[in-house]
């Protein structure tokens, strides 16, 4: 059985926390936003009805940002907790 140190557990906890935060954002821009689409569409966003813009473009940009943040954050976390891979 692998003995995981307290540091390892902390690394995993931090991973879970960042995932939870990012998925909360993901949930809001996707589901909450489109649930209220009829009302949000009343808002004019640079010519677009707001919800239309979000579903057609805004949410996609947020998804890219989420993945980018996760990638950067986890790389930093790997180094901090000494579990990073050796570069070739």
């Amino acid at each position, binding site marked *: 059985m*692998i003995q995981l140190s307290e540091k*390892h557990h902390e690394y995993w906890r931090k991973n879970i926390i960042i995932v939870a935060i990012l998925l909360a954002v993901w949930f809001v821009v996707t589901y909450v936003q489109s649930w209220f689409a009829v009302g949000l569409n009343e808002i004019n966003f640079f*010519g677009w009805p707001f919800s239309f813009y979000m579903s057609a473009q805004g949410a996609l940009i947020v998804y890219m940002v989420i993945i980018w943040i996760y990638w950067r954050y986890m790389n930093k976390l790997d180094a901090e907790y000494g579990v990073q891979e050796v570069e070739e």
Partner: protein
Amino acid sequence: MSQQAGFSQKAFTQQLKRYYWLYTGGFFAFIALLAVAEQLGMGRRAIGMSFLLATIALYAMIGIMSRTLQVDEYYVAGRRVPAFFNGMATASDWMSAASFIAMAGTLYLQGYDGLAFIMGWTGGYVLVAVFLAPYLRKFGQFTVSDFLGARYGNVPRTFGIVSTILVGFVYVIAQIYGVGLITSRFTGLEFGIGVFVGLAGILLCSFLGGMRAVTWTQVAQYIILIIAYLTPVTWLGIKHVGFPIPQLAYGPLMQKIAVLEKKFTADPGEQEVRKIFKDRSDAATALLADPAKSYAEGKAALEKKAADLKAANAPADQVSAAEKALADYPKDIEAAKKKWTTEKGLSARAAPPREHAVAFPGKDEKARDLARRNFLGIVFCMMLGTAALPHILMRYYTTPSVREARRSVFWSLFFICMLYISAPALAVLVKFDVYSNFVGIAYADIPGWLLAWRAVDPTLLNIVDINKDGIVQLAEITIGGDLIVLMGPELAGLPYVVSGLVAAGGLAAALSTADGLLLTIANALGHDLYYKMINPKASTKSRLVVARTLLLMVAVFAAWVTSHKPGDILFLVGAAFSLALSAFFPALVLGIFWKRANKYGAMAGMAAGLGVCIYYMLTTYPWLRNVFGITAPIADYTWFGMAPISAGVFGFPVGMITTIVVSLLTPPPDEKTQDLVSSCRYPVLEGEVDTKNI
């Protein structure tokens, strides 16, 4: 590109960049050459043919150059595909004929409600990034079933193999169908022949080089498909918003469309046409109330009229017209019923134009609520399905490290969004063009190229002067979704060579997805079933021979099925997502995030999830109901009004809960399995399980 001592990932990436820049330049030169040839009088079919044959030859060349005899190369491209290029390959693996050809059409026809697919097919990558890609890469074998096998044992592995084949096969048929359609539209070849020409292209790519060849052709195919998609969008942008990146500026155009929609709703000519459709539909509804009586009466009336005219010595043309009407009358009651049902369906065209920007339209609160629920259902199923499709997950085994796998998900989504952000813009641009430049013109002024599409495929366009006023009304036009992308270049006033380019792009999209899927299916059989379960002692050489033989057999079988034109292709694509998420998502994600999940839970969860999903589709989808002879009303089987395509919204929770409950009721997994989970969670871990030896 063979593995050598002192191999440097950095130099390799540089070299790849050089190759693909050269390739892109060469492709532009080829387009320029054909453009000149067009000016010199080269015909449309010749241009279409040159594009298709040249690109297929190109993919084949890459495929042959990437041939390999090494297992690692064949299954995971040697695990040294840089994140950037794996992103491109994943993007073209992901974007199918449906994304390239049909997506903008769906948005054109459905407006806001079509955006469910835009969000669903991109947001899933967030789940891939945080739940699966890095962990599967660390696990580091060859297939998704490998993970299920190592984590849960052989029975869940078998479930994995069966689900992979089921999902992959359903999906690949749609791709080969797309290949046949594009080939036959642009070259005039028969559909069945088009299918086999495309098949030859697919096999040349993947047969000798497996994943390695598929990866490098997919990158090449991405470059072609994105150039093909963005060229008309850019030109239409210049035409309508005066800006070459209309993705950033089409908002105000939507307000202009809304004004036009109001105008068409109130326009007397439009109202007249819609009234005609409504009357025809009402008349057919009345006839259908008692078909036998209506049929006899209708026939008798026509016979009487013909006889009366003859008796009265009416002019010959009147007599022959009456006789023709009699001859055209349906042969029997069944035929008459069919004809009247079609007429009854015209009520759909009696409605005013659908408002593009309005979310969840419906006649009352209940209908609107149902539309909203189904919108969210589709988004949910497409997202979780994305994160469960084996041919996509497999791609993350090919990166050099866990870091690169995470980064690669970002690049995948980036390259996918290049097209997905453009599709809604294209739909709006085309709609504005049609509304402002075609509606209201005289029939004599309809451009010849538009009518030419009708000759190519009658389902693409139907335009008939219903109220005989010689003016085109919006209600008189029926556009097939596929036409939106296909006619983009001509709307923008571009030469036919760009239409040929669009065809090549559509072909690239369909071929790249088909490549990835066929390889996944063949690997499920050759690697998971044959090597891992039947003959673990097989030599490298015989493993590759088996893998290739199976690839060939699966491909020919899929093409054979496709050439029979099985119906309901679009439903089948959506169904693949619901099936994948019900079967794989709970077992994969819990397998990584919950050490307590055990093989009994996984078995029960996969079976229950998939079972519920299949049951819901069988009982609510008309075509499947027919096949299985289910006659009780659909409403009896419908839960919460969800459409069958979203069956995954039931399959997922059932699979999840079953996995958790059954796992808790049975003993926890052994230490070795728990160590495996720990090893997957950390990019480097002391004493980690070496997955190569399990």
